């Protein structure tokens, strides 16, 4: 690696460390995200059937019914998405509050490094949320998460990469509007449709212990992989212009 590349990595890491240190001290992003995720989980546990009903053996289900595991996996990922977007909307909050956007932009680093640093901090936040939500859903709804934990972690990280890349880029756009908490979901949710569909399809199979042997699994893995590469490529190229 050349010294320029090492410098890029070191500066990006320094910026990411700065954001994580601010969060460690001020605790303004992760605790609200967790509180939101917890509140939604509590409400969902009232409205959805619990583990015994979900796994009750059924003879051939009548045509037109849906597997409840798919529905609950959908609720899990909706909660992850909303909690994530609440946190991502605050990506540039510290800089905005202190009028420090200009100082951030003056950092002696390529803008893509700025995006990468913010994305790393957001990835830490969303992984923390998932470390709470996935076990909580596993307990409440009897999901089997330990059967094939390696595959599950791989799928979740594949989902997270695309989610964080898109959320970080769009948070920079939303930060320049009057109602950024509203603006970010409006921009990000349509773009995240493929990620969300892939996450639900793949994880619901894993949660009921079917593994990734299903017909569509390879296709969804490919879609997630292509999405991640495209989202990262577009972000790296476009972030230079996203903040002004």
């Amino acid at each position: 690696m050349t010294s320029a590349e090492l410098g890029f990595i070191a500066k990006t890491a320094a910026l990411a460390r700065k954001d994580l240190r601010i969060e460690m001290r001020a605790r303004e992003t992760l605790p609200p995200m967790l509180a939101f995720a917890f509140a939604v989980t509590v409400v969902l546990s009232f409205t959805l059937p619990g583990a015994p009903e979900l796994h009750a053996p059924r003879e051939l289900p009548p045509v037109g019914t849906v597997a409840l595991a798919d529905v609950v996996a959908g609720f899990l990922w909706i909660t992850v998405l909303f909690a994530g977007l609440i946190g991502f909307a605050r990506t540039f909050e510290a800089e905005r509050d202190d009028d420090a956007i200009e100082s951030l932009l003056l950092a002696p680093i390529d803008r893509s490094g700025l995006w990468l640093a913010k994305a790393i901090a957001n990835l830490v936040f969303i992984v923390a949320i998932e470390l709470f939500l996935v076990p909580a859903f596993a307990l409440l709804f009897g999901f089997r998460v330990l059967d094939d934990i390696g595959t599950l972690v791989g799928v979740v990280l594949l989902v997270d990469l695309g989610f964080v890349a898109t959320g970080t880029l769009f948070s920079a756009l939303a930060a320049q509007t009057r109602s950024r908490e509203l603006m970010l979901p409006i921009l990000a949710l349509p773009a995240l449709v493929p990620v969300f569909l892939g996450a639900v399809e793949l994880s619901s199979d894993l949660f009921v212990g079917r593994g990734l042997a299903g017909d569509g699994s390879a296709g969804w893995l490919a879609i997630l992989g292509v999405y991640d590469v495209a989202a990262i490529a577009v972000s790296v190229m476009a972030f230079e212009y996203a903040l002004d």
Partner: protein
Amino acid sequence: MDASSRASTRSLLPLGIATWVSVAVALALIFFYAREADLSMGGQLQRIFYFHVPSAWVAYLSFGIVFLASIAYLRTANRRWDLVAEAAAEIGVLFTTLVLITGPIWARPVWGTWWQWDARLTSALVMWLTYVGYLFLRGLALDPARAGKPAAVLGVAGFVNVPIVHFSVQWWRTLHPSGPTPADLARDSGLGGPELTAFFASLVAFTLLFALLLSLRVRLGRAREALEVRELQREQLRNRAIPTSVTT
């Protein structure tokens, strides 16, 4: 009205006449020349195809122009490209809305359902939501004068989905009809000579209508900008006047 704006009004007259003539010709061909389709394709209702597909074409064209104008704006910072992108995005949302209205009207009797979450319909709806978000991003900007750059970033990023909408019928199994593909031109589209004539006439009419709307909308954007500049100048003059009146 000064001389330059009069001149630009006049320059749109030929385009306007061409648009309305082509619209009239296309309507006549669609309703009196094209034959009634097979009942399995909706019979008389199949004629909505002559509006549905050209609307989709205009939507692609609009978002393609948003994409190119956004790149041009990010590279040159020339305000003209920003106005073109904004105008094209509005027209694209309008025509995507028409696609999303005409499609279900046809699908209800033919498919038996208004909507189906297949790849084509889902990706088209995502395209609509993306560019509605684009218009919100501009409308809710903290500083409208600097709304162009973030919007241009979205105009570039959002275009990724447009080819997916188009090719979704070939990449996935969908309920939506796919029509002939460049790779398989021989595939029977089910349309004969009169139907294809009406279809291409409609495509021309919609394209001309798009060009007219885009020209009008860009001009509107330019006029609004000129008005804002004049108001700013007037305000500056007023502010300068106040201290002098105090001193005298």
